[in-house]
């Protein structure tokens, strides 16, 4: 941008920063409220709680059976990550390297699940999965979650693969690599950073994916975010602090993976997935 030091420009800049500052302040206020409450003995009508305790964490752990929920969550998430990589990366490779009749249609097929919100396609999808007897168990949840993540991996990987020079593969062929060796020695090392980034993003998105899991999960296949929803929905049954403790556990789970993912990707990539 070209520098501008006039008063009007400065006022406008100040207004912009004020908006973003106000937004971040409230965002942190909201998060801090949850964290504070989870450590509070009693917190009613004051700025800060009457006292501090960690007992809500152990009671939340037992009341909500968080051990089971966390293990279910991670089983589902890792299955989704693994399968979306397995299905998505080869497809992305084919799409990046080949032009074939109907390619536009195939691209549209991969774009749609990312453009249509999960709740819209989730209801017919859940219906089908219930009819097939898969909903209510882990396999159904995994299948439902794969619907947006497979296209996500494909769309993240295509530009990444395109920027790898095809001459490198040609060179490997010339020097005698067969398809398998080409894949192991050339493609995998070259694609690894892209795959890692795509799969980490899938991981973060799947932990936080509420709608699809909510629509297809049964009592034994709930992930953390769905359990959290039910706990908040049935507020009054449990102590608020206990729910907040669970929320903190959820936040930590998500944000740790987010921080890991951000070592490899740019924050804008988390939303800017479907460019052009």
């Amino acid at each position, binding site marked *: 941008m070209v520098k501008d030091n006039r008063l009007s420009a400065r006022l406008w800049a100040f207004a912009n920063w004020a908006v973003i500052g106000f937004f971040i302040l409230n965002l942190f206020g909201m998060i801090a409220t949850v964290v504070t*409450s989870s450590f509070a003995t009693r917190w009613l009508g004051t700025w800060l709680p009457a006292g501090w305790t960690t007992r809500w964490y152990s009671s939340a752990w037992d009341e909500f059976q968080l051990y089971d929920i966390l293990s279910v969550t991670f089983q589902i998430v890792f299955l989704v990550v693994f399968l979306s990589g397995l299905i998505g990366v080869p497809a992305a490779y084919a799409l990046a390297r080949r032009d074939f009749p109907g390619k536009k249609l*195939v691209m549209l097929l991969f774009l749609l699940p990312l453009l249509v919100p999960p709740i819209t396609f989730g209801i017919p999808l859940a219906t089908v999965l219930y009819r097939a007897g898969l909903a209510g168990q882990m396999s159904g949840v995994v299948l439902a979650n794969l619907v947006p993540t497979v296209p996500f991996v494909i769309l993240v990987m295509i530009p990444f693969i395109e920027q790898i020079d095809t001459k490198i593969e040609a060179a490997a062929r010339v020097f005698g690599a067969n398809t398998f060796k080409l894949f192991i020695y050339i493609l995998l090392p070259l694609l690894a950073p892209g795959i890692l980034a795509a799969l980490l993003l899938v991981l973060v998105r799947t932990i936080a994916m509420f709608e699809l899991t909510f629509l297809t999960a049964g009592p034994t296949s709930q992930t953390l975010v769905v359990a959290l929803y039910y706990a908040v929905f049935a507020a009054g049954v449990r102590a608020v602090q206990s729910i907040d403790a669970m929320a903190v556990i959820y*936040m930590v789970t998500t944000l740790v993976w987010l921080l890991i993912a951000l070592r490899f990707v740019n924050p804008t990539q988390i939303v800017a997935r479907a460019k052009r």
Partner: protein
Amino acid sequence: MTSPSSSIDPGPAIPLSQRLAARGLDGLTLLVVPAVLFLLLLFIYPFFYGLFLSFNPKAGGTLANYQRFFSDSFLYGTIATTLWLALPVTVITLLMAIPIAFRVRVMKHQRLLTTILVIPITLGTVLVAQGLLSYLGPQGWFNRTLLTLGLISTPVKLLHNYWGVFLSLVITGFPFTFLLTLSYLSGVDPALEQAGATLGAGPWQRFKHILLPLLLPGLAITFCLSFVQAFSVFPSAVLLGAPAGPTRVISIAAYQAAFEEYDYSMASAVAMIMGVVQLSIVVAVLAARGLLYRGPAGGGKG
């Protein structure tokens, strides 16, 4: 071919596999097949299944579900309710996002800010709803601060009404809109703005004549994506809003039909209607976008 009328030798026959390869179909292309099959099975098939199901109601004729939807204000009203949330939220977040994205684009510690903003997206609507439940409450820090500053005399009611849902949509929607806008903006070559300046264009003229026209197609996409997200609001409408009244959004109607009345046929009909409304807004915006310049936003060749 042994047609007597043709005296030209067709040459040795080319194997089918090579002819296919010439059109881009070979072993490598087949790698796309599992993904295509998967999505046909779990995205396209359920859609048509739902469409079919919606025309096979539990009771009544083919169109009974749709007739019921559009004759019951408790059902058709959800469209207006949802639009009344989604449209203002999308417009406001976009209007906030554009100038801020312009400012942040030239900022040095851009990554810190984008990281902070990605947090609410990552946490998701359920956690944001749960957090706002305490934060915006009558005893929450938000009302407390306003009371202390003397801006209000009694706590503002921000929960279990329109505003609770509205604010939660802004908290998750603004970062989304902002990051999308920022990524489109960073695709515009900064030399174009500099060229504008050396040709005598002031800041407002540079925005109006150069940046905005180049950005509009991207902003149209951003608008669509943000709108579609806001339109499918669900957990926060239940947790922060008044799901029986003012914030009974269309996804609640669909959910109730499916999982409370177990009327999958009706639920599918509502989901189809939801999809049609989203699609028509998106199509309208994209049709307008078709009138805009859509080439590369770089200043050089290629």
